């Protein structure tokens, strides 16, 4: 498989601090939860290397990026080094001055705000009292200044019955062009709070059906790379392939999910370079000490990850006898590692057979757009 000469995008956790403690945060209590933030000078030096490597986009995450007092300086370093940026935020610390600054750079692809409810109850229950109002205020501040704003809805046990309200709030009342969805994954704090946070099989069934219906109603304006909506689409496809007795699906039947390390890398708040935010335990090197290009091309850890796609799902006892094995990707290696301690293993959380065995039901195929 061909490899780009350098990564196209870098995800950077510029801080380990956050003003909230969301009950399903994937960061805290994960391998990415490291002590101490680097000074801005370290990031600026790193951005110079990214410029030399022709990296085009940096995503700033954390922790909460807006908690950094020197965020403008950090963004300035991205702009100076010919890149664009995105910010992943809880939205609660965004003020007019910062929004105006971001707009003035002309380089922001988007600021993503997390909004998980149509009313304070369903948002604040996981993110903390008052956070809904502050997140909405942050979103409105960004829009007032013309900053491209995106919204991500994390679906959990307490907002699964609020999905219609959320879609109405975001797409009708606030007139966003679209919003993205995910679900609380079994990582970080979510693992600790799984019993109150994670979707049950029944919740998941409801979420998939509801999201497909809403996506149809709103002409595809609800998106997903993971979570119930993405699963509904992927699993319906797999079920159809099984029913029709199709030959193995191209690019499936082995550990092909998800392959982010073919286009991007991540950096923890302590400067440790990792393959992905979800694989923060795999340490590839350190910024400003190790050569990013060499890591990208030559690191054995990355090479091993890039060869995951050669491992057939059929060799895992977990997949034995599964009728979907030739149409499955094994899903996120980060989730596999968290759940079974192995990167080279299919993720049990993303298993269609397991979902059906536990009483889950796939939505009606006619709901697909």
């Amino acid at each position, binding site marked *: 498989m*061909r*490899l*780009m*000469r350098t990564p196209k995008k870098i995800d950077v956790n510029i801080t380990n601090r956050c003003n909230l403690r969301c009950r399903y945060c994937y960061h805290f209590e994960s391998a990415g939860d490291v002590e101490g933030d680097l000074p801005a000078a370290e990031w600026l030096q790193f951005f110079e290397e990214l410029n030399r490597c*022709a990296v085009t986009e940096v995503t700033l995450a954390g922790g909460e990026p807006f908690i950094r007092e020197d965020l403008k300086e950090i963004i300035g370093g991205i*702009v100076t080094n*010919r890149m664009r940026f995105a910010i992943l935020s809880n939205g609660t610390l965004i003020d007019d001055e910062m929004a105006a600054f971001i707009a003035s750079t002309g*380089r922001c*692809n988007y600021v993503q705000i997390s909004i998980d409810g149509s009313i304070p109850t369903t948002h604040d229950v996981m993110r903390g009292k008052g956070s809904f109002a502050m997140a909405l205020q942050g979103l409105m501040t960004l829009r007032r200044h013309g900053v491209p704003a995106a919204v991500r809805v994390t679906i959990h046990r307490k907002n699964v019955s609020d999905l219609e309200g959320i879609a109405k709030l975001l797409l009708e009342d606030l007139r966003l062009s679209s919003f993205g969805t995910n679900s609380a994954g079994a990582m970080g704090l979510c693992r600790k709070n799984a019993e109150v946070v994670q979707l049950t099989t029944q919740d998941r069934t409801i979420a998939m059906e509801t999201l497909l219906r809403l996506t149809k109603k709103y002409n595809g304006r609800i998106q997903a790379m993971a979570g119930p909506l993405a699963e509904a689409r992927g699993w319906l496809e797999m079920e159809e392939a099984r029913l029709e007795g199709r030959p193995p699906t191209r690019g499936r039947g082995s550990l092909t999910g998800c392959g982010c390390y073919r286009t991007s890398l991540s950096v923890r708040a302590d400067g440790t370079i990792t393959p992905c935010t979800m694989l923060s335990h795999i340490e590839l090197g350190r910024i400003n000490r190790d050569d990013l290009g060499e890591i990208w091309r030559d690191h054995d850890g990355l090479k091993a990850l890039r060869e995951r796609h050669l491992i057939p799902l059929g060799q895992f006892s977990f997949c034995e006898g599964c009728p979907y094995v030739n149409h499955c990707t094994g899903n996120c290696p980060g989730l596999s590692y968290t759940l079974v301690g192995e990167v080279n293993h299919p993720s049990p959380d993303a298993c269609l057979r397991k979902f059906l065995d536990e009483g889950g039901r796939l939505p009606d195929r006619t709901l697909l757009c």
Partner: protein
Amino acid sequence: MDARNPVANPLIVLREEFDDWAILFDPDTGNAFGLNPTGVFIWKLLDGKHNTDDIVSRLREEAEDVPEDASEHARQFIASLEKQGLVGYEVIAGSPA
């Protein structure tokens, strides 16, 4: 020597991706433009020190089977880059602007 030598917009990022292919990335717009290996070769010589004839001469030195009308193709290519704001012209002192 041509009074106007093309020079690459220094803001534009040449991102070499697979083999000798590349994209030109404009961070101000987010737009990307694909370049084939010949385009990459030309881009690297848009330093204000070479005119189109120089560039084509270098191309003939480095590559085999360069077509006779390569100069015209190179001019068109550079003109298209200029139209998209990826290339400008360095004016030599004393020459007409």
